[in-house]
């Protein structure tokens, strides 16, 4: 029997082998496409659905409480806090770009500060996000309060608290509470105490504000810090001016209540005894004493009480002298027409002079230009400044014009 001829695979025709391979490949591809294309279509449809939805930041990270994470982090709590900190920044960015709702991020900052209570940036940035950006200042302050409890010696936290309380919540009392905490911290820079002085000033505690600034001045002298000394020396007269104006306003009101008529001048008020006795700080004496003690050995701050006693005249009931050598003005018409608690019927001579200087400079420039253009001075005020009325005079005075000299001045500050 003749053996059957067997053709091995390797001996098959070259084209047929490749034909079979290609056929298999094509069939496999078609089968794959049949299965995959519908899946692709479904996927595409779902993606389009997602695209059509309003953009919302969804934090996919669920985090339990800080205490639980602290347990799980087995000692790498600082590192865990850092990771969540990075996450919180991303979450802030995500919400900022979409819905701008930041309340959910509070939880992240809460966890971070549980994991690392000394992470000061987490408190301040958290407060900024929740309070400043998110508008929930009380929630932001909650974070700050938590930080203050855990870091009682860090000035930054109460300092931020004071900022939020004053500028955002308009609560000077709360702001003072925070700033007083800040000032007690050993790392508090000197400007914090000046903020406290400002707060005291705004809440009418002039004497406290002045004493705070005087302490700053003496400390600056002891530390030979000329910059701070200069700043404080400029601020002390500001406080005294506000204090004096407050005293004068009270006196005018008292006069009005007692006599039933508006006083015509501050001298009348003084003569009637309506000025309540007050301690007068004599600034030239004050600065002289500071300079004297500066030369002596020892710290000037230790002589605080002696300086303040020597520079103060107790129980004075006169119109206070302006600490910068100007004067205090009085406008009876402002007292009548305005809210008597806040109106500008007592005027700071310095402020008045400076503002008037600017106004007169502008108006006189017009007269000068007229003179250059026409070769003569204007005959009347209206010729050069037709729209200038007496009502434009910032302190209710009158504009006076002398044609012969071509000089314009104001009755409020005639010497300018």
């Amino acid at each position, binding site marked *: 029997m003749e053996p059957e001829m067997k053709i091995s695979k390797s001996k098959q025709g070259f084209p047929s082998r490749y034909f079979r391979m290609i056929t298999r490949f094509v069939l496999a591809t078609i089968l794959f496409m049949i299965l995959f294309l519908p899946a692709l279509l479904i996927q595409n449809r779902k993606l389009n659905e997602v695209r059509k939805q309003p953009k919302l930041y969804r934090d996919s990270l669920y985090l339990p409480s800080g205490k639980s994470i602290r*347990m799980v982090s*087995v*000692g*790498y709590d*600082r*590192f865990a806090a*850092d990771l969540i*900190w*990075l996450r919180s*920044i*991303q979450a802030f960015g995500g919400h900022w770009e979409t819905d701008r709702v930041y309340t959910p991020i509070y939880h992240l900052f809460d966890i971070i500060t549980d994991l690392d209570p*000394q*992470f000061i*940036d987490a408190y301040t*940035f958290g407060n900024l996000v929740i309070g400043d950006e998110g508008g929930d200042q009380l929630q932001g302050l909650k974070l700050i309060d938590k930080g203050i409890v855990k870091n009682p010696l860090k000035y930054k936290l109460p300092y931020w608290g004071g900022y939020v309380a004053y500028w955002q919540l308009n609560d000077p009392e709360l702001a003072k509470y925070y700033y007083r905490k800040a000032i007690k911290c050993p*790392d508090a820079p000197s400007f914090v105490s000046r903020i406290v002085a400002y707060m005291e000033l705004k809440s009418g505690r002039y004497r406290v504000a002045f004493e705070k600034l005087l302490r700053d001045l003496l400390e600056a002298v002891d530390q030979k810090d000329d910059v701070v000394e200069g700043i404080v020396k400029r601020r002390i007269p500001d406080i005294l001016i506000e204090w004096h104006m407050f005293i004068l306003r009270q006196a005018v009101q008292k006069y009005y209540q007692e006599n039933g008529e508006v006083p015509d001048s501050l001298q009348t008020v003084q003569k009637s005894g309506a000025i309540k006795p007050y301690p007068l700080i004599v600034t030239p004496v004050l600065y002289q004493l500071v300079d004297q003690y500066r030369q002596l050995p020892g710290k000037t701050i230790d002589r605080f009480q002696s300086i303040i006693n020597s520079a103060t005249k107790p129980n004075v009931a006169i119109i206070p002298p302006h600490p910068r050598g100007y004067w205090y003005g009085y406008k009876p018409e402002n007292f009548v027409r305005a809210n008597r608690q806040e109106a500008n019927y007592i005027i700071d001579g310095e402020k008045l002079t400076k503002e008037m200087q600017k106004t007169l400079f502008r108006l006189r420039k017009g007269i000068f230009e007229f003179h250059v253009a026409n070769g003569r001075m204007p005959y009347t005020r209206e010729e050069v400044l037709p729209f200038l009325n007496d009502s434009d005079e910032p302190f209710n005075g009158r504009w006076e014009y002398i044609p012969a000299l071509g000089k314009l001045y104001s009755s409020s500050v005639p010497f300018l």
Partner: protein
Amino acid sequence: MKKTLAIAVNTFKEAVRNRILYILLVFALIIMASSGIVGELTISARDRIIKDLGIASINFFGLLIAIFVGIGLVYNELDKKTIYTIVTKPIDRHQFLIGKYMGLLLTIYINVLIMSFFFLAVIYYQSYMESDTITKALWKVGPQGSWVPPSGMEYLMYYLKSIAMSVLKSLATFTGLYSPEVSRNILKVIFYGCLELGIITGFAILYSSFSTPTLSAIFTVLSFIIGRMNADIIIFADRIKSKGLLTQGARIKYGFSWLAAHVTPNLWLFNKRNAIMEDAEVLKLDGYAICYFVLYTSAILFLAVHIFRRRNFK
């Protein structure tokens, strides 16, 4: 002592040949090098993140080396029967085990040293890469008073100089010649981390003296976790007590927690990581922690030797 040292040196040589050591080391160095990039993701506290990442990496990878290299040290000797060539020599079993421990500790500490050196260099390098520093160093005022940007070559030279200076500064910090504010307490924190690793290595040796590498790894990791949670365990015990030990169950729970808190290692003693904060005070030597390390490790090794002595190698 000579014999113990000989085994320690041999163990070190053996560990150095272990590929996993290099993988871990390279991985740690990559993570530390990338800390600058991670720092870019934050809006503040950049220095803090770089430092935290570095310290955590050194500690974590040191721990991994202790576990992965430590657990196989004794087991491999038994598995490959190489222990017979040692025990037949006039070497006591305690010398063998302590030698193994010291060798492994030497390996870990050399790795920590390399990582710390690299970490300090990264910190110094980051300070060179701050935009203000670059601007001050490279930007110049031109003839018309405008700023002239540096050329590409100037940038390249600056980067190379920064790398060289960072390495030199790192070296100077190690030798105590240079101790700037930015790296204050870092070496001390790493030192306490090394003490912690010493205890964990002791546990790795203890477990590997009587069990398989897998079990040893699990036990060592658990010891580390319990050690780090030691303070929480005693708080838990106190909480049970504060509710009143009225039932038998409560009493057992309290007793067990109290015992666990006292027997397990207190690794919190070596956690000084808060000292790397900007305004932290200079870290003082904690004699209590050092004494605790010496005593606790000795006790662990004593236990390991005791178990190992009773072991039959047949």
